[in-house]
């Protein structure tokens, strides 16, 4: 049994951080064959250390490593699995293009994908660092499939692979494992496949499991999703408050599960004020018990500048500090304890 003590309303981030300019440049040079991988990788490690230091300075409780080694959250896994190749450029929006995975054979994992970077990031800090994975449904949905006859077969093979990866993260010491599944609400008609896959993905895991899901309309699938085998849902309450709160009022949210409440708009340059963020936190506390609630931005911060990400997180932590004080005055404990069967 492992007990993790955290301040009430623990603070965290969803996953990605903005890449520093030197890393953007190095990735570009590496793609053009101008520098070796070892040079790129050194800079990825340097940037990861900066992400860890930044979060420690700000006072975040559960850290992320920032995903400096990842271009796209689905493509990164595809690049490291057997059975995938990578497409030519496909448009994401406006002037942004990305390379999308193409499934061309049976999916197999030949080596751990995320473990080394997790270990490195965790070695830099005493605070817990989350292990970060993209879920099988999302990798499948965001890939071209030229091999499997149907989507279910592809998703379930990916689920086995992500399960192996999650077990390895746990062995490497990850107390928190986050499995992102943003594509799930975009296909309500395939919720059974997503659910089946999620069970496989989390099989045998004993760490604190989180899933981040964004961008969707949960109405048709809420009852199914809240029964996914995780400890915590991480949802975007800033951009989707008008949909999520009414849904939670009508359909409920499990009392025994934790919720990470997104209180920062990651798509806007504007730095929210401390008071504005406090108001978002207090709105959340009308719907959840404070001991259930974690606080973080709506989504990954990679599209912001480094300065914007820092300023947004600083104000988030200040707002949380103030609300914590108020909660303690109201008689809530200053700490929460998470018990894991590790």
């Amino acid at each position, binding site marked *: 049994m492992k007990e993790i003590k955290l301040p009430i309303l623990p603070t965290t981030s969803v996953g990605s951080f903005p890449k520093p300019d030197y890393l953007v440049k190095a990735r570009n040079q590496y793609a053009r064959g101008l520098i070796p991988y070892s040079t790129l990788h050194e800079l990825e490690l340097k940037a990861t250390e900066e992400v860890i230091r930044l979060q420690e300075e700000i006072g975040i409780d559960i850290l992320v490593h920032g995903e400096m080694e990842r271009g796209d959250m*689905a493509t990164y896994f595809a690049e490291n699995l057997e059975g995938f190749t990578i*497409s*030519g*450029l*496909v*448009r*994401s*929006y*406006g*002037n942004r*293009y990305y390379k*999308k995975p*193409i499934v061309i054979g049976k999916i197999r994992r030949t080596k751990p994908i995320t473990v080394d970077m997790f270990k490195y990031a965790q070695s830099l800090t005493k605070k817990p660092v989350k292990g970060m994975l993209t879920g099988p449904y999302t990798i499948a*949905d*965001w890939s*071209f*499939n*030229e091999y499997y006859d149907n989507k279910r077969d592809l998703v379930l093979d990916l689920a086995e692979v992500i399960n192996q990866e999650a077990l390895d993260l746990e062995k490497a010491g990850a107390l928190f494992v986050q499995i992102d599944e943003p*594509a799930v609400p*975009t*296909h309500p008609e395939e919720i059974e496949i997503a659910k089946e896959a999620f069970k496989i993905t989390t099989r045998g895991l004993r760490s604190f499991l989180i899933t981040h899901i964004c*961008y*969707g309309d949960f109405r048709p699938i809420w009852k199914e999703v809240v029964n996914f085998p995780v400890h915590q849902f991480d949802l975007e309450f800033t*951009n989707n408050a008008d949909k999520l709160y009414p849904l939670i009022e009508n359909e409920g949210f499990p009392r025994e599960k934790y919720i990470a409440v997104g209180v920062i*708009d990651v*798509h*806007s340059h504007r730095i929210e004020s401390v008071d504005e963020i406090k108001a978002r936190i207090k709105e959340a506390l009308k719907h959840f018990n404070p001991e259930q609630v974690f606080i973080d931005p709506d989504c990954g911060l990679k599209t912001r500048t480094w300065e914007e990400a820092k300023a947004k997180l600083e104000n988030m932590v200040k707002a949380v500090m103030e609300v914590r004080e108020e909660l303690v005055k109201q008689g809530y404990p200053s700490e929460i304890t998470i018990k894991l069967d590790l």
Partner: protein
Amino acid sequence: MIITVVDHYPKIPNPPREPKLRKAIHAYDQGKITKEELEKIFDEVTQEVIEEQISAGVELITDGQIRWEDGQSYIARKLEGTQIGGLIRYFDNNTYYRQPVIVGEIKWKEPIIVEDWKKAQKWAGSIPVKAVLTGPYTLGRLSRDEYYKNLEKLVKAYTNALIEETKLLEENKVKYLQFNEPSIQYYPEDIDLLIEVYKEIRKYFSGNLAIYTYFHTVIPIKNRLKDLPVDTFGIDFVSRKENFEIIQEFPKNLALGYGIVDARNTKLETPEQIASLIKKALECIPEDKLFVNPSCGLEYLPRERAYDKLVNLVKGVNLVRGERK
């Protein structure tokens, strides 16, 4: 039978070809080139994609929507009463659009696509170019309405604005005009509103008027399609196989936009597979009421694969045509 495309075409090619449009937009954003220089690149790329479609053998093309950032904001930014908001996921794609925010009365104020169409038709020569607009219902559904606070009022305001554009297209002798209305499939209960809107639009356009849908199921509205006062109705038969059910009872008064090439997956259909699907449609639908096209716009694919898909689509149609001679 006419071979066509649904709407957009990939904007940048892969190496060794140059991503000149992406470079130009980037340079423009950084103030390194002028608006006129950027417009020149838009024109060049539009000509390239017109040539690509024609060279693949497409018989009714579009301008590839090379100037469009996305299906919503290209229209909304030229209307009064709108602002452009944050990024929103476009249906179930890993692709985003900027959301129109309605802050005042929507009014048409300047031409939206007519100049694009005129240029494209000039470059396409004898191959007809269809004019494509996002439909008023879908624009309404994909906007954030801070002004009307009522979907019907919002959709009708968009309709009135697009009617002004429709009049211009009619004046310029556009033969094919297509409105994209994927949103109706997600809210089949709004079919009456859709019918009402197109009764209005129909009054101002004498050519072939089309509504195209994609990504979802058409089954809940199948019995009402006959009431739509348009000439062509487009359906995606790839994303939802159940849509094939509709072929046997497809309304006699409509032509079918038969979306059978997967525009969201790189797996290449063979000409034989395409031919077999076309024969299946021809059992129920007369040849002069069939448009054959990809399942949706091609910009979900890398450009070279989009081209390969069109080439095979044309080969498939030609197999059928050869047998029927």
